[in-house]
């Protein structure tokens, strides 16, 4: 079986072969892994990968499958399933031209004006929520086409605070 799996906006083609009843071979690029596993609970798999054991924990989240082991979480998305769904997910790797607050917040400061050119990662708006202030950054280089809020405004998630028109980069 072939899969195209996305982690951190990168797509990895992966193939899976069943070797015998319990053994699987996973190929990722040039690398091959011999894998066995036991399902231990709804959220836990016990894996044996090339003879070394590891426990991984999994859960479905709105953004994809969250997988945890050795103190680190990974968000994995099936690119093919994504395509079938026809929806864009946050990690789908496409571009956006909106700056929104991730949660109910109060605008503390707007750091740009209409017509400004911004760099990728440049601070655009400062909002305050959950006892802390945070800066919202430009997701890419571009031109600020519209500012929809001012300092002191209460904003809800999804409200577009600043529109930025993208300038194509060489990536």
């Amino acid at each position, binding site marked *: 079986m072939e899969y195209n799996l996305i982690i951190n906006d990168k797509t990895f083609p992966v193939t899976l072969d069943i070797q015998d009843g319990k053994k699987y071979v996973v190929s990722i690029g040039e690398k091959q892994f011999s894998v066995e596993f036991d399902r231990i609970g709804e959220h836990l798999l016990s894996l044996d990968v090339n003879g070394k054991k590891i426990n991984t924990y*999994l859960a479905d989240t709105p953004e994809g499958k969250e997988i945890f082991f050795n*103190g680190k979480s990974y968000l994995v998305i099936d690119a093919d399933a994504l395509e079938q769904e026809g929806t864009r997910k946050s990690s789908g790797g496409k571009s956006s031209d909106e700056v929104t607050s991730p949660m109910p917040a109060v605008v503390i400061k707007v750091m740009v004006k209409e017509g400004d050119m911004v760099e990728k990662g440049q601070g655009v708006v400062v909002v305050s929520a959950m006892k*802390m202030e945070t800066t919202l950054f430009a997701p890419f280089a571009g031109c600020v086409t519209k500012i929809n809020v001012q300092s002191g405004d209460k904003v809800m998630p999804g409200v577009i605070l600043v529109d930025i028109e993208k300038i194509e980069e060489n990536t």
Partner: protein
Amino acid sequence: MIKKILIANRGEIACRVMTTCKEMGIESVAVFSDVDQKALHVLMADYSYCLGESEPSKSYLNIEKIIDAAKQSGADAIHPGYGFLAENASFAARCEEEGIIFIGPPARVISNLGDKTIARQIMIKGGVPVTPGMTQTEPDPLVLAREADKIGYPVLIKAAAGGGGKGMRIVKHPGEMQDACAAASSEAVSAFGNGAIYLEKYIEKPRHVEFQILADAYGNVIHLLERECSIQRRHQKIIEETPSPGLTPSLREEMGKAAVAAAKASGYVNAGTIEFLLDREGRFYFLEVNTRLQVEHPITEMVTGIDLVRQQIEVASGKRLALTQKDVFGRGHAIECRVYAEDPARGFFPSPGKIRFFQQPTGPGIRNDCGVYSGVEVPVDYDPIISKLVACAEDREKAIAKMIKALGEYVILGVKTPIPFLIDVLKSEPFAAGETYTDFIEKHFGNWTPGEGDIDMALISYLMNEISGRDKTQYQSSISQEALSPWKTLGNWRL
């Protein structure tokens, strides 16, 4: 003796207080806002009262509603935890008026120590070293500039009502003075409604070292050793440890005496924390007093073996301290990591949401003061702390190893946490070397990113889960194969 305590707080600290209540045979009363109906502290309590809307001012900060809940439930005493009303002198005063024991210092002490300039005056009178600087607020930037010349640059402008780094400005050159004063004062107005500022010598690259103190109503004061809390981001501690890698035994003794003197000078009663800045030459300066149970109190409990909440309750009941200074000794080394629902890769921005799976690390020397469980929502409305993970071992190196292992096994799915960041900090050379100064994160981890990690293993896990998903029906049906239990054969009588 106190029989029923209302805990005017939520999350891990409310749970922590209830644990000791239960061990002491004291009933606990939880209060909660609408979003917290299924919160862990509500589940743990013997009784619970809904305060209404989630907005803090309408719930956990609402003095009237909390006093009302205490009266309705017949609670003798209120424990405020930390944050919310814990350092609110009017709340403490209101409890006193209503005949409810406030588990904390008297209102007057909270009020005095809450004003930084008054606190400075008290400390100077008590012979506690303070940073060179002013003991009065001053509105005129020219007067402030003259003071700065006397003290010597760099200086630090501070708000009298300050806290959390708000209303603070470092001034390195006389020319920056006027602008800095204006900025600090306006920030203080918006943060605390009080723009009064003053000026202190700025201590460069200090350690933040604090002493736990305990005082009874009869003038007995002891300290419970220090905590080093220099690892901070945005002036908020994220890793604390004890003992401090920066203290010698003689400095510890000297600072401990100063902490006791500070408590005595302020007429302190109950548990409190005297914060100091320690400079590179081993000089220390009074910073402030936290008039409550500190977030990081568990590391003190681990190395001293003393339950601080029990001590608080006993002192509040009017008992004399059963401990003397010579009963207090530290053993081993304890480290605390604060685990928030936040994303370390994106400026530690809060990451509220539903915890889809939760599994705490356990084991010898591990303690996790926790306020959540699998399936609960971390609401957007409050401080997003999930838990405080504590590791205690024979020495610092072993405690670090234990903490790294525990963090690696701490499973929290559904919200982001700083766990990968904390692991990297604990594994770093400067941390191992004990070079823990307040600029630590900025200096060594300012540009931290989580790194790629083990992508292969994540991909493999995903695939195996897919494979196993196909067999899910089979897996689940095997769960319900109860008929195969040997006990089935017992027939209808019991052995």
